[in-house]
Every structure is written in structure tokens, then in C-alpha cells.
């Protein structure tokens, strides 16, 4: 290497530089440019909601909170008055929290069993779980309708929402179990054994060692399932007929439906209101969510 003539080293350096520039260009083209429309859409939403009028979609002309009036006064669009936003938000929140709670509880236990216990048909079961996740809830609508009806969970206000929560949680559990299983897999057997030798009972082992180590995973699945419950549309749309038990996605849908007199500013504000949890979660827990893909137990 050292005996190479100087000019050759120089030309290698330029080549390396060129290569890394090209790499960055490719990254920009592939990853950044496709995101531009998304950013513009969000910008559009924000501008629309806080401004009485906008130019070219994103240049605001003035500032107003008028579009956000639904937060403190009845929600009206055109001639129709919709239910107050707050009960609807609470409905949505109940479903989201319910889904998240059930998913965390069941997937954590299930994921532990899948990761740690040897039982007949374990591999088959895991394949089946992945397959389950591939089925969209649409194809289950009719079957679910019958089941909910039989269980008396249909057409009874909050009881229906409970039914929807259960169904939604059921649909989320397979994937969540898979994710959390990865976190359990990352805990070495030796660490669990060491705790047992140190004097832990099974339960204490769980509480003091295993749970803290999979906490990032639990955080991740609770966020995912919360958001998926929060934005659930199809089930609510299909099974809830009484406006009082709408959730935000269904409310927004119905408002867009009144296409003749759409108030874009109001709709933009409503849309932003709906995305608040998403924005909060993704801005506070980016690191956590990234770790799902990187994985691993590190102190």
C-alpha cells in the first residue's frame, strides 16, 4: 500500500469521495423526495385550519381560530349539527385504550409463551399467527356481525363499542405477540436462570427481571395498538348506527359525505385534532419505536 505512487492514492481518494456523494444522492432521491407530498399535505392541513383563506394551498392569509370552534361549540357543517366533539373523542379514546390494554396483557403473556416454552405445534402456531394478521377485517364483517349479535353486543351503545374493542384487540394480538416475542427472545436464558438461583420465585423473576427488559417492547405494542384502535373505522362504521356512539374517524367520514357544503377549514382542523395522539407518540417515542426494528436487550 505504502509503495503506491502518490497520484494513485489521490485518484482513489477522489473516487471514494465521489462514491459517497452518489450514495447520498441516491438516499435523497429514494427516501426524501417521496416524502415531500406528505409534508405538503400536513402543511396544507395546518395552514387550512388556522387561516381564513390560503393561497396555493399552503400560503396563509391571516390567522383565525374559527375553524377550531368545534372544541367549544356545537359541531355544525352546512345545515346539519353533529354530536358534540368531546363525547365522540371519549368514545374513540375508550376504544383505543381498551384495545391497547387488552393487546398488551394478552400479547405479553402469549409472546412469553411463544418465546420461552417448548410445546407441540409451536412453530406451526407462529406461522398461523402471521397468516392471521394477513386477513383484513373486511372479510370478517358478516361473521363478526353474527357473533356480536349472538353475544348481545350489537346495537346497545357502549356495549357495542365494547364488542368492537374486543374484535379490534383480537385482530391486533397476533402481530403484537410477534413483536413482543422478539423482545423476549433477546433475553438470554442465563439471565433468567441467574435470577432463579439468586432466589427469585417465577413471579418475582417476571416482575423484576423479565418485565423491565421487555418494557420497550410493551411500550411499542401499546402505542401501536392504541393508534390502531384510535383510527379504527370499518368496524365502527358498520356496527354503530347511533350518532352518539360514533368515533372520530366515522364522524370525519360523515362530514366529508356532505360534499355539497364542505367546510375545508373545519375539516382540516378536525383532521389535525384527530392526528394529535399520533403526533405525540411519534415525537416522544421515536427512539423506542426504532428499537422494535433494531431489537435487543441493552442496558
Amino acid at each position, binding site marked *: 500500500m505504502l509503495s503506491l505512487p502518490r497520484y494513485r492514492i489521490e485518484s482513489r481518494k477522489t473516487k471514494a469521495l465521489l462514491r459517497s456523494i452518489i450514495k447520498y444522492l441516491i438516499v435523497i432521491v429514494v427516501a426524501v423526495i417521496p416524502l415531500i407530498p406528505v409534508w405538503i399535505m400536513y402543511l396544507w392541513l395546518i395552514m387550512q385550519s388556522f387561516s381564513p383563506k390560503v393561497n396555493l394551498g399552503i400560503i396563509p392569509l391571516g390567522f383565525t381560530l374559527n375553524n377550531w370552534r368545534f372544541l367549544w361549540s356545537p359541531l355544525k357543517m352546512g345545515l346539519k349539527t353533529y354530536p358534540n366533539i368531546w363525547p365522540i373523542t371519549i368514545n374513540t379514546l375508550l376504544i383505543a385504550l381498551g384495545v391497547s390494554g387488552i393487546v398488551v396483557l394478552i400479547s405479553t403473556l402469549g409472546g412469553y409463551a411463544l418465546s420461552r416454552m417448548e410445546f407441540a405445534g409451536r412453530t406451526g402456531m407462529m406461522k398461523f399467527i402471521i397468516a392471521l394478521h394477513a386477513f383484513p377485517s373486511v372479510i370478517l364483517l358478516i361473521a363478526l356481525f353474527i357473533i356480536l349479535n349472538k353475544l348481545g353486543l350489537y346495537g346497545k351503545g357502549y356495549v357495542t363499542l365494547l364488542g368492537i374493542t374486543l374484535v379490534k384487540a383480537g385482530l391486533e394480538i397476533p402481530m403484537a405477540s410477534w413483536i413482543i416475542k422478539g423482545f423476549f427472545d433477546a433475553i438470554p436464558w*442465563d439471565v433468567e436462570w*441467574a*435470577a432463579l*438461583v*439468586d*432466589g427469585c420465585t417465577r413471579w418475582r423473576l417476571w416482575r423484576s427481571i423479565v418485565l423491565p*427488559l421487555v418494557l420497550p417492547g410493551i411500550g411499542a405494542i401499546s402505542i401501536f395498538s392504541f393508534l390502531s384502535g384510535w383510527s379504527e373505522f370499518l368496524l365502527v362504521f358498520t356496527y354503530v348506527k347511533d350518532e352518539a356512539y360514533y368515533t372520530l374517524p366515522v364522524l370525519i367520514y360523515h362530514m366529508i359525505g356532505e360534499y355539497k357544503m364542505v367546510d375545508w377549514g373545519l375539516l382540516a382542523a378536525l383532521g389535525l385534532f384527530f392526528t394529535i395522539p399520533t403526533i405525540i407518540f411519534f415525537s416522544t417515542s421515536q427512539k423506542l419505536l426504532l428499537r422494535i426494528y433494531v431489537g435487543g436487550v441493552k*442496558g
Partner: protein
Amino acid sequence: MVKVVLKEVSKYFGKVRAVDNLNLEIKDGEFVALLGPSGCGKTTTLLMIAGIYKPTKGRIYFDNEDITDLPPKDRNIGMVFQSYALYPHMTVYNNIAFPLKLKKTPKHVIHEKVVKVARLLRIDNLLDRKPSQLSGGQQQRVALARALVKEPDVLLLDEPLSNLDAKLRIYMRAELKRLQKELKVTTIYVTHDQVEAMSMADRIAVMNQGKLQQYAEPNILYDKPANIFVAGFIGNPPMNFIEGSIMEVNGEYYFDSGVFKLKIHRSLGEMISSKTEEAILGFRPEHIKLVTTKAPNAIKGIVYVVEPLGRDMVVNIKVNDTIIKALASPEIQLTPGQQIYIILDERKIHFFNKSTGEAIV
């Protein structure tokens, strides 16, 4: 402070016989080393004693009480795992304190004990760190501290010093041995380093492929190996082996390797030939006398390579096609290719049955 007894203990993983019919008795307060090559079942044995694995067959006793089905937490064992197995989410302090917390020890007592053991193991400056911020050797000492702090009845150590540098290892060997004698805790120490086993243990159990080969004091292992495996495993450089047969000529007995004939004592010859015809001669490099002139009953060879070790040197001698290693003082001037004669001390040679590998003498 208990006596540990393993009675006909086996552990199978499917078809793999990790431990096969192991009988072992470790006296109260004894320091026993489990010595053997990688994969011979040392860790598996420890895990059975700890109660993590249940033996496929056999029983384990602590002080004559059958504890085979007792859960690990009721055995009062301190264990250092081969992989250290520290708790990644706890600081070093909390790692060491954890067994005491489980015993509901008062806080100030925990503090005292943790600091004391940390100082002993020279990790008292690391107490606030997380395991991921420690080097391998430091992690190993934290694991050792965690095992020692609970003052266990039985201490199980799975290669606890393997990651330390030479100097620290020698310090820790002495420290660990002193500590063990002071606490009088029954200790089982897994290692594949025979020097470590020889220098620390009261008795050594040599294992190979899941089977116990010999269980004895270090000097007996060295002087009277039970079979070829032990003979070759203990000692560095290892024992020299030469295959051959015993023959009798006019009432005199010889070991005939095909290349050389070694005259042996009549009673020895009779004993060997009463057991087997095909025998393996074994002798240690340090029991060889090298001379440059022809001598009676000496084996002729050619100096092949000389490896100086500082205090002495290893001479590789080619006898026909076999290489024989001899330990010699560096004063002798030897050059490769030179003719040399090997003289064996009959009191220090071994004979093994070629078919079974068992020692005859």
C-alpha cells in the same frame, strides 16, 4: 456448608448424552474442580446442581437430603454463569444487592456487604455503572461478587476467571482460594484450564464426553492417571504416548514399539502381559533424561525442534515417525538434526491397555 452428592446422574438432550451416569461426592467445605474439554458436560452438571435442569436420571443430595426436585431458590446457591448473566437493566450495585434484597436483608446491611465484596474484587469504583459499560473481566467480577455476597451454602463457578488478564487471574485465583477456605463454602469450580484446576482445587473431577474419567487429588491425577484421557489431559506439555507390545525373551520383559525395545522390570512385564498384549507406553516430558552419548536401555532419536520457554525448554525429538516432547534445562546445547538418547525412569512410566485406555500401572 453442605455435602453435595450426585448419584448416577444423567442428563440427555434428545440423543445427546450431555452427562452420563455421573457419581460425585463433594465434601462439606471442599473445593472441587470440574475439568474437561469443551462440550464435556461441565455446565450441564452445574445447572443440575443449581436446580435449573432436572436430571433425566439419578438423584442429587445436599447433606443426605434429596433435593432433586427442590426449586433453585430453596437451595441457597451462589453461581457465576459462563456468560456472567448480569441483569442488564440494573447497576452493578443493584446486581450485587439483588440476592440480598430477595432475602429481605435490611438496607444498611445490604450496603455494607455489597461495598465489602466489591472492594475485595476491586470493583468498588464501578458500582454506579450498568453492565453494558463494563469490560468482560469487570463483568465477570461483578458476577462473582453477586454469587459471593449471599454467603451461599454451595458456590458454583462456571469458568469465572476466563476473561481476566494473566496478572489479575493469578491474583484472583489466590484470592478466591483464600476466600473459599475462609468461608468454608462447598465450591464446584468449572474450568478447562488444568493449571487453574491443579493450583486451586482440593480434588479434581475430570470429565470427557459426559462421563467422569477420574476424581482425585491433583497429585494423584498427575502421578496415577486412571486412563489415557486423564494422562493426556493433565500436564503441560502433555504426556508422550507410544504404542507397542510386551514381549518376553529368556525370562526378560521388553516393551517393543517396533522401532525400539525398552527393557522393563520382570514384575511389571508380568503384570502387563497378564492383562493385555497391546499396550501403550506413557511418560511425561519432565521425566525424561536426555544424554548425548549411547547408554543402556536408552531410546535413540533425533532432535527435531527446540522451543525455549525461559526457565526450561521443550525439546521435540523424532523417534522414527513419532515426535516425543521432553523438558530439559536450557543449559544443554542442542541443534536440530543432532542424535540424542532418551532415558526413562522406570518408576515414572505408565502403561495403558490399548483397547480400553485404562491404566495398567
